[in-house]
């Protein structure tokens, strides 16, 4: 495991409650409530040098499905998306490594699970490795989900309106309660700006921003500039200066989610 890796954890309960945990113990050490609409989600994020690997260990307290999603690869933490294939696997901590149960798969970042397996109670790990395609050290974010969310809420939409500073970024978190399509539409920008960066990703769980999965440079319009299929869970929208701002500008983004 590489020391550069940094991990964040969170426990998401079905009611949409979001609780952050720090590195280290990220999961309850005692069994959770009986099987039901409860989901536990963790985010494994860090920076992986070229040719290296890293892993994240967690405790599963009951038989349930594990879903693993490589959600983001970027050249800088929190930077624009640079979709880059990586090797992903599930295993058991053994020695100084994560011993994979099956051969790893090479995947490209997206917001639906690339791996899903039933797990018995025990300690497991998720391993990420450069599949030979990293052009440079890559920041990554992997979502690790145990169980299923409730899925009892309706699709919705909301407006993210704020002010973007020069060289700055702004982000907002929302929750998709079922699988489906998320669309982002930059509806307006204040005077002095014609385009800004617009991204969709998963939230940093310490509240410091968004780990971007897809991004584009967007000008205001009526059609979605970013769209992606997502699994149920917490997501975020990021608006960021791509270098064109000379003064702060207001913006408005319409978020439609399942």
């Amino acid at each position, binding site marked *: *495991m590489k*020391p550069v*890796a*940094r*991990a964040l*954890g969170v426990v998401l309960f079905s009611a949409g409650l979001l609780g952050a945990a720090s*590195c*280290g*113990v*990220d*999961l309850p*050490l005692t069994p959770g409530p009986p099987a039901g609409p409860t989901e536990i989600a963790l985010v*494994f994020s*860090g920076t992986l040098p070229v040719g290296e690997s*890293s*892993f*994240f*260990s*967690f*405790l599963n307290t009951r038989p349930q499905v594990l879903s693993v999603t490589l959600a983001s690869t970027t050249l800088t933490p929190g930077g624009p998306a640079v979709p880059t294939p990586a090797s992903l696997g599930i295993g*058991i*901590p*053994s*020695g*100084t490594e994560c011993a994979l149960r099956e051969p790893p798969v090479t995947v490209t970042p997206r917001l639906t699970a690339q791996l899903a397996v039933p797990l018995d109670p*025990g*300690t497991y*790990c998720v391993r990420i490795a450069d599949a030979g395609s990293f052009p440079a050290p890559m920041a990554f974010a992997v979502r690790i989900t145990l169980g299923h969310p409730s899925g009892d809420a309706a699709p919705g939409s909301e407006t993210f309106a704020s002010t973007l500073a020069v060289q700055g970024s702004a982000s907002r978190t929302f929750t998709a309660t079922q699988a489906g399509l998320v669309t982002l539409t930059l509806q307006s920008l204040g005077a002095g700006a014609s385009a800004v960066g617009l991204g969709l990703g998963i939230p940093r769980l310490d509240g410091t921003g968004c780990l971007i999965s897809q991004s584009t440079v967007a000008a205001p319009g009526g059609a979605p500039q970013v769209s992606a299929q997502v699994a149920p869970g917490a997501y975020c929208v990021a608006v960021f200066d791509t270098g064109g701002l000379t003064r702060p500008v207001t913006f408005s983004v319409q978020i439609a989610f399942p």
Partner: protein
Amino acid sequence: MPMNLIRGRRGRRSVAAVLVPLGLVALAGSGCTEASVAIPSPLGNNRLVAVETFVGTLPLGATRFYSFAVPQTGVTSIVLLSLRENGAASSATVQLGLGVPRGTDCTTPQTVTVGVGIAAQIAITVEPAIYCARIADVGNLTASAEFAININRPR
């Protein structure tokens, strides 16, 4: 966490459990090894234990950990067998811990800061699960150190 602390003494009755593996380690040389030996238990019956050796290099200010499975309830103990800085035996102390792998580290409910020894420096009764041994430089090293830790666990 399926881990119960037993007496905090430095494993007087575990000396045999350490000396026997020590010999095995000497034979094994570098790398991670596992062996089985019959250890006289305090209850009078001989219980099989497995010995794993965690060897590596500890950079200044860094941590390293090693995960292992315990298949049945029993005492698991660890001891820092050797520590070398710049190729020579070191008298520095480092932090040893026994815990569970969580996130990108080993979460250790019990740690000790110790130098090289021959008797168990942490001994804990654990239930079947995956555990980890962790070593950390807490500021006492002057150079990267090569280390060897023996892990005695139920087999």
